[in-house]
């Protein structure tokens, strides 16, 4: 790569957010930084604002004030249309469950980001073609690509669905993967297997990973662990 250091995958400063104008802040974060390629664990109990924070980072929610910078790009300087395009190109998102469009077969679910973003499609092409790349990621995540490829997403087990979701988040080499409690519906064994596969693939594609969960026991599998309640001053006020 280049000689200058890559910009951080994520940098937040003085971020404030509330769902409605009258409500107190749900999020109030002074600073949060995730380096390029870094794998971060963010712990927080239910209702502490984890999903809200991810919504802000992905640009789906608009902060009341403060700045979100992703891969060196300040999100607040973009119009919402450019933000949506930026998200499509540079972010991969994995939800807690129900990640897949039930009416598309597995293969098409994985390739969906390439439909929404030219850049993701190009990256996948460079890696050997959309289909080949999707199959490769499925295999890497421990699925039999041939077998699941044309199955309806809803036919898979929850653990398999989460792996397909991970493959979808990773296709086209986005710079930052946001995972919102992706393992909470999995048993302990498949949870650990899933996390290590996800970490491996993030490393392989150079993506940073922001993994949020209420389960602090997962923390030591990551480069660095943070507690949302310590960095989010809004939620501290609320829970005290």
């Amino acid at each position: 790569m280049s000689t200058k250091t890559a910009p951080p995958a994520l940098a937040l400063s003085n971020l404030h957010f509330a769902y409605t104008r009258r409500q107190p802040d749900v999020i109030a974060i002074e600073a949060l930084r995730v380096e390029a390629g870094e794998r971060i664990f963010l712990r927080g109990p239910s209702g502490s604002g984890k999903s809200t924070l991810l919504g802000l980072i992905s640009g789906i929610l608009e902060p009341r004030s403060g700045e979100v910078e992703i891969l060196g790009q300040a999100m607040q300087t973009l119009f919402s249309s450019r933000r949506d395009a930026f998200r499509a190109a540079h972010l991969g998102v994995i939800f807690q469950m129900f990640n897949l469009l039930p009416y598309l077969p597995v293969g098409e679910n994985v390739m969906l980001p390439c439909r929404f973003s030219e850049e993701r499609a190009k990256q996948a092409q460079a890696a050997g073609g959309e289909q080949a790349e999707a199959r490769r990621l499925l295999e890497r995540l421990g699925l039999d690509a041939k077998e699941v490829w044309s199955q309806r997403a809803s036919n898979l087990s929850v653990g398999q669905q989460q792996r397909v979701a991970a493959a979808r988040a990773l296709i086209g080499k986005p710079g930052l993967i946001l995972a919102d409690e992706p393992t909470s519906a999995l048993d302990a064994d498949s949870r650990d297997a899933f996390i290590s596969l996800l970490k491996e693939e993030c490393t392989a594609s150079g993506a940073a990973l922001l993994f949020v969960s209420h389960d602090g026991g997962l923390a030591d599998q990551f480069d660095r662990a943070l507690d949302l309640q310590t960095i989010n001053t809004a939620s501290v006020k609320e829970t005290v």
Partner: protein
Amino acid sequence: MARLPILNLALRSIGNRRATAILTVLTVAISVMLFLGVEKVRHGARESFENTISGVDLIVGARSSPVNLLLYSVFHIGNATNNITWESYETVASAPGVAWTVPISLGDSHRGHRVIGSTPGLFEHYEYGGGRTLEFASGEPFDDLFDAVIGATVARELGYQTGDSIVVAHGMGEVGFVEHDNNPFTVVGVLAPTGTPLDQSVMVTLEAIEAIHMGGATGSGATVPAEQLREMDLTPDQLTAFYVGLNSPVAALRLQRAINTYPDEPLQAVIPGVALSQLWSIVGVAERTLAAVAAFVVLTGLVSILTAILTSLNERRREMAILRALGARPHHVFVLLVAEAALVALAGAVIGTLATYGALNMLAPLLEARFGLVLPGLAPGLYDLAIVGAVTGAAAVLGFFPAWRAYRNSLADGMTIRL
């Protein structure tokens, strides 16, 4: 954003809810079928009605109202208030510019069907359906005093064929007041279906009407033997009405005025087309009501699309959140739902239109053979294209409502997936 697979996603999403979608498409298809069917039959009926009689420039009868004259002289509904004299008829018939006249004498019946006394000129000059002339399914026009020609419906309902003998009664009704059964008529001809009141009629010569009434209107003259009757002068002295054909239709208005102001007898002449339009404006209320009902049925079909989409909305919040996370814009969510409504309506409208024309093409020969009803245009035309477009457009507009709700939801939900 050419890569955006929104339309494709809309189709797949509909496919995922196939059962509901098929039912909704069916609802729309049936409502469109009903609407187009009503429209077709409506136009067919109107055209057929307005073409009940053509090629006749004037209808002349005793003075009443134009619609009344039309009703009894063409549709055989009701009775003439008065007859007109043979002298008046001859005066008009010999007026300059008159090409031909066909006298009509009504008042008798055969088993519930009207008997028309006329001349062979009826078969020559009566036109309907925009210039179609009467055709014989079998036989030929009447010639002899006791010859009769019957309409297609009469032949079908009563099972008559050429060569059969029939008895004519005086007055109307299933059983006439007096049956003139001493002078049976022979069926010499059966007309092909026309969709006009002639289908329901029995046609005999003017002289025959006179003959069966010899010696008084109640028909006591029926005792006079046929041989004797043939030797008498049976020129009637009264008529119910007569049709007039002119050398040039331009003269119609002038002759009409002359007849309406005829000094010796209160006569009235009407131009059939004008009177038919007048009559249709009365009958047409029912027809317009029918069209309005059909339009409301289409609206019901459209509302069913709305219902189907609205009920699916909650279970699809997840779908919307996923699409948003993948980079879909809020307005894509909007477009997705509007497209869904429009696609369902389009499918329903197209299927409904094709089914309508399929059915019409299958029914058309039957309708024409049995009722003489000729339906206009048996292939989809611009009008149908406009209907399909209007139904699709209306559905898209209705789709704004669920689309707006989904749009609001997707803005409010952010990254959380609500179930």
